[in-house]
């Protein structure tokens, strides 16, 4: 199947030439018109043999770095958790990640993240798009949408960006074609994939709809109408594809399903693996609850346990299937948490927001695993070596995925915007 998105120019051209008359037979004339143009479009990729994929495990709320991946055993304000060895000599992590500890040889812990936003909405936006909310009056696309556009397949019927568990960040000015497909519950996948009527009748209906859309767009030239049409085209593509079976995790053998654990997040990780196997470029799986202003010690342990099994299994599965070197897995939140516990009266203290120094972890994607990049002081409060800000982080992710981070994309008004803002280069040490 072919790329079906139409630019404004295309739509007007088709409306003007009365192409609608032939469209009763279906979407075919429209497909043909577009096919040639698609082949000519340059992509922002370096000529790599196989396209890269990314699985972003988004830990919403800002996980405490001092209680997860930047343990400071033996210091006065150390985490109450034990630090355990991993299968990489010299690297220790929280005792609540015993299985992740056994795949540490594939991972790189970045302990020197240092970013600018300390409020959830702004920080989430910042770490998903690389830009600041409101900057320049634009809605910036998230990394998922950027990946969908730059390295996503133009021929696959599956959307290139899928978000599981939490709604994905929007494509901003990149438009409806690169919006994430949101799957609320991995157990239910994508509903309503089956048409209510026969294929023949569905084709008739789509023909009628096509005509109406062209008529309306010819008169109103509305961006919303164009987006509506694109969304419908993508939905129809998905309906008619065999690849859509990837969304149904009941197709996965039981023992494989169980290996991811019986949690929503675990199922999300399994679905993510199935999707990247089928060719989806970017999958984001969300796990919320990390905003531990109180009750930090109980909650972080619980959340870590929820992550440990599926994340380790995901890395192992990808490695076993020969996909790990092409799939970048990122574990991160929007910031870290204060090195000292807050003074909550009543005995269930927590940690507050802390963007100044925090940690994230990357696996696969061709990076050299088994290392730590960057360092914080003994309190885990200040970065002492190799700070990494958001722009550098985004540039690094682009480099790993084979995206040119300096490339410009145009907003609908024709304004060129860099994929990653100026002021930072990919961090070589992370890639190794």
């Amino acid at each position: 199947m072919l790329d079906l998105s139409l630019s404004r120019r295309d739509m007007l051209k088709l409306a003007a030439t009365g192409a609608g008359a032939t469209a009763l037979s279906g979407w075919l004339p429209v497909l043909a018109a577009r096919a040639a143009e698609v082949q000519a479009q340059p992509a922002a990729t370096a000529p790599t043999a196989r396209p890269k994929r990314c699985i972003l495990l988004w830990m919403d709320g800002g996980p405490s770095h001092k209680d997860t991946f930047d343990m400071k055993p033996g210091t006065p304000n150390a985490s109450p958790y034990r630090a355990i060895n991993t299968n990489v000599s010299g690297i220790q992590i929280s005792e609540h990640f015993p299985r992740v500890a056994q795949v540490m040889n594939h991972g790189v812990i970045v302990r020197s993240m240092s970013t600018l936003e300390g409020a959830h909405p702004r920080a989430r936006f910042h770490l998903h798009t690389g830009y600041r909310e409101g900057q320049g009056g634009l809605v910036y696309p998230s990394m998922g949408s950027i990946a969908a556009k730059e390295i996503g397949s133009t021929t696959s019927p599956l959307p290139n960006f899928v978000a599981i568990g939490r709604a994905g960040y929007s494509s901003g000015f990149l438009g409806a074609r690169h919006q994430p497909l949101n799957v609320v519950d991995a157990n239910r996948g994508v509903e309503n994939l089956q048409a209510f009527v026969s294929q023949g009748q569905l084709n008739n209906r789509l023909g009628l709809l096509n005509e109406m859309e062209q008529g309306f767009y010819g008169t109103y030239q509305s961006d919303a109408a164009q987006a509506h049409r694109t969304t419908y085209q993508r939905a129809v593509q998905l309906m008619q594809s065999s690849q859509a079976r990837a969304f149904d995790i009941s197709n996965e053998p039981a023992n494989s399903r169980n290996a991811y654990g019986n949690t929503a997040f675990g199922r999300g990780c399994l679905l993510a693996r199935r999707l990247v196997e089928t060719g989806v470029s970017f999958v984001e799986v969300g796990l919320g609850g990390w905003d531990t202003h109180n009750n930090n010690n109980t909650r972080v342990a619980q959340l870590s346990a929820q992550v440990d099994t599926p994340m380790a299994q995901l890395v192992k599965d990808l490695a076993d299937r020969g996909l790990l070197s092409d799939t970048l897995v990122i574990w991160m939140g929007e910031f870290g948490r204060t090195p000292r516990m807050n003074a909550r009266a009543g005995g269930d203290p927590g940690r507050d927001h802390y963007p100044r120094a925090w940690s994230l972890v990357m696996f696969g994607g061709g990076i050299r695993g088994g290392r730590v990049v960057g360092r914080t002081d003994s309190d885990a409060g200040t970065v002492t070596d190799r700070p990494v800000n958001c722009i550098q982080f985004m540039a690094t992710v682009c480099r790993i995925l084979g995206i040119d981070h300096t490339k410009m994309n145009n907003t609908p008004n024709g304004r060129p915007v860099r994929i990653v803002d100026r002021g930072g280069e990919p961090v070589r040490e992370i890639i190794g």
Partner: protein
Amino acid sequence: MASLAAIIFWAATDGPAVLHAQDKGAKKKGQPLTHPVPAAGTTVNVSSLAKIIDDEIALRLKQEKIPASAKCDDSEFIRRVYLDIVGVIPSVDRVKAFLDNKDPNKREQLIDQLLANGNFGKQLSEIWMHEIISLTDPENRLLPLEGLRKWMETGFNNGKPWSKMVEEMLTSSGTVEDNPTTIFFAANKGVDKVTGQVTRLFLGVQLQCAQCHNHPFTDWKQDEYWGMAAFFKGVKQNVTPKKAAKDGTPVTITEVAVAGGPAAGKVLPKKKKGADIPEGFKNVPPKFLAGSTAKVTGAARPVLAKWLTSTDNPYFARAMVNRMWAHFFGRGFVNPIDDMHDNNPATHPELLIALAEQFKRHNYDLKYLVKSIVMSDTYQRSSKPSQGNDSDTEFFSRMYIRSMTAEQMYDSFTVLVGAPGKGGDKGAKKGGMVPGGKKGGGGPREQFVRFFRLEEGADPLEYQDGIPQALRLMNGPIFNKGGNTLEAALKQKSAAEGIKYLHLAVFARPPTTQETQRLSAYMAKQANTRIAYNDILWAMLNSSEFRLNH
């Protein structure tokens, strides 16, 4: 602070003190204003205010050299004004009657009818409930929310002054069952939560960043935030909704005078679990935003409520005017609509001030404000672009196209095919319930709304539906089960009449000749008339023309 003083001066005078850059030269003491705003102290009626809107918008368009689109036709008008005022498309009979009506004042008559319709208050109340109540907090679902919504609906429909409605909400006490306005506090528990909501919703100002540090982009300092927060220090809630549901104690809101008066430096007694005392709490006396310290001897909230309508408060009227304008046009004079500050200026500052002033003078009468807006030529402009004005995104040269809200969609479907029911697909292996967040629950309408609803803060001018929404509309039972419109079309005398009926019902307009020809040809080719009509209806209901408010 120079800029704050400018805001106060700017808003408190009866005329604009700040003009466009182009006008700076002309604005000298004693010279007549170039902007057609009412003279200081005048109260103007609906048609005059509508004219002011048109003159101001036209003035700016002239400065920007942008041509305006023509007036919308009757079909565009009736559909748009129905959706905007009563939240649902007009029925076929209403459309026919309106299109056939020869009375030159028919548009105004229609507006008056719609403002008198109970769904005016219903739609507004639902919009406000989305703003006031965050449903991501599952405990909020345990509150008797319908009580607050109904109270708001009644207030809007009975023409209760907006200032009075807000005052009652802000000063409410009692149990959530007996006095539903207390739900405002019960659903926004904690000094920080309620302060953020009050300033955002009623003053149009986003103060939350200033809770922990001085605001990065504006002049709001931390003390401004804590000065406002101090008005809510005395608010107490006895139990959480969860506990109330378990042991039957009604959730009750009370306000106590803060012990020893709100003198600075006085330490408040420590609270258990810190639920009401937010992080970084600062103990300062209550102070009006960008204004003076308040004199509070007993309860603090009534003092705050009184300030809302005082001449020292430039925010209250402006915030609601901006919000109502955005409801009708898809964007406000200031955007985001609740983020009004120096570095985020209005596109039409004089008009915003004039509207706020008149809203105030009419005792915060919302129907007066709404009627003035929809009577204007600006509102009644076509959404079809003209002479290259399609690149205009802020000067209202044409009506911007918006998506229908989820509620409008559901209610319009109900008119056309009967209530959509619980959704889900015919061939679903696992039940047909709508996936809607952590807990389902709520009737079919609530589930539908959750599924289609824009995210908090989403731009109404941006199309937000994704593949799951498209799939549900295409393949869900909604349009696949016939319904009253289908049956009525089948009863028409001919295919052409049937096609006309469908267009009036779904699009509020008759079909073009070309459309009639093409669709008649389609019908002639189908073996089964019912199936043919069903196909056409399906396509219409899935079309942009239906989905969008244009």
